[in-house]
């Protein structure tokens, strides 16, 4: 290729033009296209994020609706279990309830005393408390006692008998002295 010979002045002008071009490109990319690209990338990232959230929320709402259907039985069961503990302090209602219950089973003079109460270690039962009771019956017939205990276990699902002592009443072998240690699970009010 036969390049034309450039004069000194022409070389200067050429260098000046090249510098101008470089400066133009620098300004263009740094102050115009760069920030625009940044804004664009940011907006695209935000769109992706929102879209992900929207998609996730749809799944979340579907899951909640599904869970609501699944939890129908659990909700009803939970309400039933809650209904076993009336309002108020357990010491106020549990001993009379036991007295009435055993009286209805032909066992008189049943006395229930609160021994202790404690919280559960399980996080699921954080809203529930364990109460330990001692139920004493100075005079009970074995048959009536067996029936009463079976009935109590059926009627009070949140009550668990942990200890049972039965001793013959001296001079009255047809009767027994009975001690029942029972634990009840009661919701905190």
């Amino acid at each position: 290729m036969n390049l034309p010979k450039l004069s000194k002045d022409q070389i200067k002008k050429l260098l000046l033009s090249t510098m101008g071009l470089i400066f133009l490109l620098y300004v263009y990319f740094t102050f115009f296209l760069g920030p625009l690209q940044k804004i664009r990338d940011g907006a695209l990232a935000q769109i992706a994020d929102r879209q992900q959230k929207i998609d996730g929320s749809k799944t979340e709402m579907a899951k909640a609706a599904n869970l609501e259907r699944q939890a129908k039985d659990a909700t009803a069961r939970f309400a039933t279990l809650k209904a076993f503990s009336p309002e108020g302090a357990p010491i106020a209602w549990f001993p009379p309830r036991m007295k009435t219950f055993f009286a209805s089973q032909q066992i008189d003079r049943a006395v229930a005393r609160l021994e202790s109460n404690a919280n559960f270690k399980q996080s699921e039962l954080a809203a529930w408390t364990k109460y330990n009771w001692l139920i004493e019956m100075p005079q009970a017939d074995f048959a009536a006692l067996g029936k009463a205990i079976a009935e109590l276990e059926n009627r009070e699902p949140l009550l668990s008998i942990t200890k049972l002592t039965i001793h013959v009443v001296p001079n009255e072998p047809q009767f027994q002295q009975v001690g029942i240690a029972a634990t009840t699970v009661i919701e905190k009010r």
Partner: protein
Amino acid sequence: MALHLNLLHEEILEQRQRKRDPLKIGILVLVSCGTLLFLYYGWNAYQTFEIKAKLNAIDGDWKKLEPQVTQAQKRSAQLTDLINTTRVLDDYIDNRFFWGPFLEKLSRCVPPNAQLTGMEAGVLEDDKGVTITIDGVAAAREPRSAAEDLRQMLLEQLGKSYHDVKVEFKTLEDVEAVANLGGTNVPMARYILSITLNPNAAAKPAATPAPSRTKRRNESS
């Protein structure tokens, strides 16, 4: 041959030099590049505006949806807690040891020539089983055999409903007193039985009451 004389060669050279002036060419290139770059910038700016508009629309959708999602998440957490609590409570209920069926079985195992005078029973912690201590008396020609029969019966009957049943005598001794059975005086033995069992396969609570032992006890005394 004609002679050609170029008398304007200096002017022509000057004109040519002006035409290829690098500054002029450079300015032309710069302007062209600038125009291209401006157009490219405009196209990018338009696209960015479009993206921004899309972002605004999505933002609007999300703002509408967000409270519902928060509520759904809250409800989900509530329901999960409720399901878990109900499950744990159900486990607690199912893992109880039911004394009604046990007392029924016990009463059915005691023959007319044996009597129970006391019982102490308890559920071991962490569902490790149940221990029962029974004391009583047996009356027969061979009172120790009568007590052994009771032990065998308990082992057999309780083994049908529970796992790992062990029935052992802690004490078995003759006593001096005699019992009157059917008009005959027979010797008596006193025993203490220790029972351990694992209720994992325990029967469900009986709806039927335990049978009366009063009559039997009266018969045996």
